[in-house]
């Protein structure tokens, strides 16, 4: 028990010591360790670097400096809870935990604490229904958009007919990997393909059994919902059994440079979905290089600038910064609260003109968030890897998904959540 007292005393001392900050605080619940660090590091770097850029170049957002305190979660929900509790007292304006499991954990907590959650391209898909999930925003795209976009791409390749085709969903056996299953099942009923789901358990360094099954079933397409070390292993295994790479389509979390590079040239042709542009040919990355990396203020070593996951971190940070600016304008105060931040997110409008001003013209779609729709347009493109050139290129345009199938699923899932937790609709 003496140990506990020492621990308690030290923690108490630390909690008293941390001052209340007047800056705009966007905690980054990152993971730079563990099997998913390969994706966690560039994302956290991109997120922090963009906020640093705003501080260095523009003097913050609306004249108020931005702070990004980091907290290591290792993709573990218990540590995620600890991180949330330890950072929310700093005046956190929004959370972006980059983990579907932690998002599920935080949805009720953050809603009760009146702090918005921003989960672009991950988290609970049915949170797109803002009527029920007042504090959760997952624009510009979610997993069900992704599943539908992948099927649309496959439909295009097959002249619109998938009758009798075999499609395998190879997925992480956790909240994240299971999200697309309802949509793919429903789409299977609509288009007549056979869906087989093959789960990969955490952390996914060993996938011989899964790929043996794929080899036996000879599916026409493999859709892949993997993350971290799981991605590299899957692509390597696909190369080993000589599975045609252009029939292997990953979600946006399974389509980064570090995922395909270990398999070398054999990964050429691998496809992945994306909801934003690829490469570093956008002015904002020049600014990042100049003001952040060259100035020695980068969160990482600067080598990730322009890579897929880093760009996604930048994109997410940009959205939050725009929402904060929006909130400042709506409420007429520079030092906003988390409740005002929520309003900023809910009334956010991203236009092409604004994207051009930010140096990100064409990087992402134009859209407008509303009280009922927190999900954005769900426009998704397919990118393909070229092993020889060592880069991704977009092979389709950004296009929408099959909302006739997805919207009823979103409504049903969010209605079930609302009933379980007795939530009244917030939009009227």
């Amino acid at each position, binding site marked *: 028990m003496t140990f506990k007292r020492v621990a308690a005393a030290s923690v108490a001392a630390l*909690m008293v010591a941390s001052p209340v900050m007047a800056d705009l605080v966007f905690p980054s619940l990152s993971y730079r360790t563990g099997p998913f*660090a390969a994706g966690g590091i560039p994302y956290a770097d991109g997120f922090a670097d963009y906020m640093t850029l705003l501080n260095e170049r523009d003097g913050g957002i609306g004249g108020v400096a931005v702070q990004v305190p980091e907290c290591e979660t290792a993709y573990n929900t218990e540590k995620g809870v600890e991180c949330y509790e330890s950072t929310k007292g700093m005046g956190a304006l929004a959370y972006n935990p980059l983990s579907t499991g932690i998002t599920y954990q935080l949805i009720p907590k953050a809603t009760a604490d009146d702090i918005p959650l921003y989960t672009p391209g991950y988290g609970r898909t049915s949170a797109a229904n803002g009527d029920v999930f007042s504090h959760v925003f997952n624009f510009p795209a979610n997993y069900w958009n992704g599943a539908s976009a992948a099927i649309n791409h496959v439909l295009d390749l097959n002249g619109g007919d998938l009758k009798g085709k075999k499609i395998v969903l190879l997925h992480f056996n*956790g909240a994240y990997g299971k999200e697309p299953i309802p949509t793919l099942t429903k789409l299977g009923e609509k288009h007549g393909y056979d869906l087989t789901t093959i789960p990969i358990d955490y952390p996914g360094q060993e996938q011989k059994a899964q790929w043996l099954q794929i080899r036996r079933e000879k599916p026409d397409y493999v859709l892949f919902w993997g993350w971290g070390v799981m991605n590299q292993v899957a692509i390597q295994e696909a190369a080993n059994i000589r599975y045609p790479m252009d029939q292997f389509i990953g979600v946006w979390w399974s389509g980064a440079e570090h995922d395909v590079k270990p398999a070398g040239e054999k990964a050429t042709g691998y496809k992945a979905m994306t909801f934003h542009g690829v490469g570093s040919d956008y002015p904002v990355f020049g600014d990042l290089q100049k003001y952040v990396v060259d100035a020695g203020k980068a969160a990482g070593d600067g080598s990730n600038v322009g890579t897929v996951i880093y760009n996604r971190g930048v994109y997410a940070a940009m959205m939050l910064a725009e929402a904060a600016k929006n909130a400042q304008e709506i409420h007429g105060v520079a030092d906003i609260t988390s409740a005002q931040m929520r309003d900023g997110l809910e009334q956010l409008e991203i236009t092409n003109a604004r994207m051009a001003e930010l140096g990100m013209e064409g990087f992402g779609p134009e859209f407008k968030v509303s009280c009922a729709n927190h999900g954005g347009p769900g426009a998704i493109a397919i990118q393909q890897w070229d092993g020889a050139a060592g880069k991704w290129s977009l092979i389709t345009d950004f296009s929408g998904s099959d909302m006739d199938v997805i919207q009823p699923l979103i409504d049903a899932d969010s209605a079930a959540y609302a009933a379980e*937790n007795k939530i009244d609709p917030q939009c009227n």
Partner: protein
Amino acid sequence: MFYREAGDFKTSYRDDNQTFPIRLDRAGYWIVLFVAFCVIPFFVNDYWVNSIFAPFFIYAIAALGLNILTGYAGQVSLGTGGFMAVGAYACYKLMVAFPDINIVFHVLIAGGITAAVGVAFGLPSLRIKGFYLAVATLAAQFFLVWLFNKVAWFYNYSASGQINAPERTVFGIIVTGPNTEAWAKYMICLVFLVGVAWVARNLTRGMTGRKWMGIRDMDIAAEIIGVNPLMAKMSAFAVSSFFVGIAGALFFAVYLGAAEAGESFGITKSFLVLFMVIIGGLGSIFGSFAGAAFMVLMPVLLKNVLVGTMGWPTEIAAELEFIIVGGLIVIFLILEPHGLAQLWRLTKEKLRLWPFPH
């Protein structure tokens, strides 16, 4: 000088057999209980409850459960995570199916269901021991997690396989869900912990506990003097799983609020609880508390010191945490293979003689 039996006269067998024979110990025990029940609840905030007290109390319950099985009855188990999952999913199904019933009963029934599952998976222990039994319980761990992932009925067919704890109350006070007050969360965990520890202590010093220890020390000899190995082993599995089930139910419903089988109750959880028991001390109630405190509080403390005070980058702090905690485990086990409880016991022995050792 102050810490001694001399002068503390006992006039009945009952007094002679009490848990804390030394006056100072008794006083300390009542003071700790008083502080825990009547002082801390008025000062706790969300951070303290969610990061420190709730995980500490819940892991202490799980460690008590495993300590009964492994420490007292000598049956090695690697299925703790799976049994916690049984408690969590049972509690979830009960909470959703019977929303008007007091959550305390749900937790207790979830413990009962886990006890039944534990007994079923404990049956192999009648034929096999040691490492072989560990492998059998490992199978339980993998089977149970697979089951809760595979069968959608357990998670009410939710899209992602997550279970979410709805809001439930005890005497009108919310104890689960996001609107729980910090003190309510603290109190429900504390009440269960004190209850479980009290039952565990009294079981282990009575006939049941002596039978378990007989089986642990030499099963053939125990059988010869009249211990029924079937009853002893099955009761150990039942009581242990009951406690672990309660821990799992509280872990999901009160502490996390949302869980999924693979992530929250994987094999790492089984090892974590086993380490708590080994580091705390096998066959010791105090050891279960000490082990849980060490494994839960040490990483939080290190994180706060390294990142909060010294401002180190989070990833270096996280790696260093592993190194320091791992190193401390090795050092403890070399210096004192019987765990923190033995260190405590030795300290007390020395204190009795202080300041005049022979």
